[in-house]
């Protein structure tokens, strides 16, 4: 699943470590989500949405069944 996490993070001038701390996950998790290697759980996706003040579907782009 593609996402806009890297762009949103860059807009706020946060490092991956900053974002990881705010989301209470490891930096590796942030990196894996950004690179599309890992799709977050629904609770984490909502946490990301709340943090950036945007709905989940604006951050995560549904690519359909790939």
């Amino acid at each position, binding site marked *: 699943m593609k996402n806009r996490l890297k762009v949103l993070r860059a807009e706020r001038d946060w490092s991956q470590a*900053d974002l*990881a*701390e*705010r*989301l*209470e*996950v*490891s*930096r*590796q*998790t942030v*990196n*894996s989500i950004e690179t599309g*290697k*890992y799709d*977050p*759980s629904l609770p*984490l996706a909502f946490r990301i949405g709340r943090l950036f003040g945007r709905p989940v579907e604006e951050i995560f782009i549904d690519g359909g069944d790939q």
Partner: protein
Amino acid sequence: MNAKSVPSAASFTARPAVWVVAWLVAWFLARLVLEGATVPTWGRVAAALAPVPVAAVALLSIVRSARDLDELERRIQLEALAIAFLLTMLLLMTLGLIELAVALNPDDWSYRHVWAMLPVLYFAGLAWTRRRYA
């Protein structure tokens, strides 16, 4: 920032490491005692069982540590364990089949040798899974 910090994979392995080292020390000490010819039977049994409680504490420490991991690290651990389980099954099945054909030397292929391969398979699975999500 006051957000709760999440333990990294490094701290996951560091926290129970003390107990794992204690376990290995107990194991080597037990082997040392058991190789001594003058130890009575009850002493040999006590020495043989001495590493078991230390191992139990080490394993419990690993489980406790796993509860603090974030969701990706939990998935990595789960996949590593799944790989290790499958490789273990393959190993034991292979040894069982070979044993049907030829008698395996118990000095090389007893339980005390085979169990040591299980952590090796787990770490191999962990390395492979970590690379996948890196």
